[in-house]
């Protein structure tokens, strides 16, 4: 079982304050992981770290060489007032294949059309993006991920403000990606949804609290521990000394989890 993403004592954050603190472990190729935790617990930050738009404060976050990556951010910087049609937005997903100058041929157009019908947006090709509802836009963004055809797929709270039917459709897509042996990580808030559909979960509270089989990771004890996490930065927090902090070890296979060192740092 090869690693798709490897975290080595990874600390990510803003202005010297860690948002993800000393994370160790690997995301296996072909795994489907839900990333769970309270607001401010570092879930989105972790996603940004994997994508590479946020550089680690210390440690490393390595995506296996040659892995193509698709990322659907929580706070999209998408400009909905931009004069573009749905098909223009979804065609952006051809970038990894065609780049800046590659011609979008008949096959590419077929890929885009297939993606649109897979998310239930047939006939929406020529609609301006500013006329889409929230759920329709989310479907279009999923279509773009489909078009990207990536090995590693990162979805940050993709079910926000989306109705139940759309959630079901999007979950089906995620299951399809999982079936195609793609590596998928999804930030989700709905724990029932996680228990029902996601084989593995990573529970975060700045420190990683638990990671592994969903039932075990989301046990009442772990959830309680995660709930005790304090969201606000402490301006007077002590410096995090080397070797201190949650040296969290996560191994797959036997699912061994060990918590070393004190958790009183920062």
């Amino acid at each position, binding site marked *: 079982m090869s690693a798709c993403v490897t975290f080595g004592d990874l600390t990510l954050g803003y202005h010297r304050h860690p948002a993800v603190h000393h994370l160790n472990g690997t995301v296996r190729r072909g795994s489907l992981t839900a990333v769970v935790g309270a607001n401010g617990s570092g879930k989105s930050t972790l996603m940004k770290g994997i994508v590479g738009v946020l550089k680690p404060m210390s440690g490393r976050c390595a995506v296996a060489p040659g892995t193509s990556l698709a990322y659907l951010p929580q706070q999209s910087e998408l400009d909905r007032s*931009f004069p573009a049609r749905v098909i*223009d937005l979804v065609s952006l997903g051809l970038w990894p294949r065609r780049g800046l100058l590659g011609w979008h041929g008949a096959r590419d157009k077929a890929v885009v059309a297939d993606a649109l019908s897979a998310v239930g947006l047939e006939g929406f090709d020529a609609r301006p993006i500013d006329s889409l509802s929230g759920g329709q836009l989310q479907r279009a963004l999923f279509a773009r991920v489909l078009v990207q055809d990536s090995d590693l797929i990162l979805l940050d709270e993709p079910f926000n403000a989306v109705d139940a039917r759309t959630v079901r459709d999007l979950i089906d897509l995620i299951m399809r990606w999982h079936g195609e042996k793609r590596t998928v990580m999804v930030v989700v808030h709905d724990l029932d949804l996680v228990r029902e559909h996601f084989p593995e979960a990573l529970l975060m509270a700045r420190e990683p609290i638990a990671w592994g089989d969903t039932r075990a990771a989301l046990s009442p004890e772990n959830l309680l521990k995660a709930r005790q996490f304090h969201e606000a930065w402490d301006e007077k927090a002590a410096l995090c000394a080397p070797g201190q902090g949650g040296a969290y070890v996560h191994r797959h296979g036997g699912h061994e989890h060990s918590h070393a060192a004190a958790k009183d740092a920062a």
Partner: protein
Amino acid sequence: MGPLYDWLIAPFAEYGFMQRALVGALMLSVSACPIGVFLMLRRMSLTGDAMAHAILPGAAVGFLFYGLQIIPMTLGGLAAGVIVALGAGAVSRLTVQKEDASMAAFYLISLALGVLIVSLRGSNVDLMHVLFGTVLALNDEALTLIGAIGVTTLVALAVFWRALVAECLDPLFLRSVSRLGPPVHFLFLGLVVLNLVGGFQALGTLLAVGLMMLPAASARFWTTRVEPMCLLAIGIGIVSCLAGLLLSYHASLASGPAIILSAGVVYILSTIFGTRGILATRIRPASHLTA
């Protein structure tokens, strides 16, 4: 020959300076109007204005040493524009300050410096010339320069089109699939400076922005796609230049302001009558559709 010929064709057919003005203005429209569309879509409409002010000290240094000569003033303007664009871009990317504030800071410093330098040597008339240009006095050098800038702009737009659109539409997505985002941003600012410098001999540093922004802002009211928007902006730019030159010829008006005011008229008509303008969006038909 009918009155129509006298009005529309004769001025250009009979006078060399009118032909040059027309050629210069048309080339400027083709090149600057699409740039204006992207400035507008990136919500940087006022950045064009700031950059136009920023060019002044460079042009003024050229003027200080060589008088009213196009090449030194152009090169000086180009250098000043690039310094301000890079400086403002660097401050916004490396600090918490956003680009609008850093751009304002840099262009105000630049503008004050420019006026100071011009006043060291010239009179108010010279300052007026630098600020407002003279499209009726374009020489071969100026036309060559405008042509070269136009070709450069169109080639750069064609090559980087997809990246420019992606950077406007969804910058975070572009960052997740490519490293082209920041270079494309600076390339674009470079094109803005280039086109303002090209426009300043004809229209002056201040009014050059007018030919860039007004057709773009007008085109926004007629279409919901980028490609037609750019073509329409170019068309509006060309019509405005023709109208402005003819008005200035027949009514003895200053040519630069006449061109920009013509574009202004198109803008106001577009805001009212455009397919996405006031009338179309405010006045609704009594019946509506079922879905």
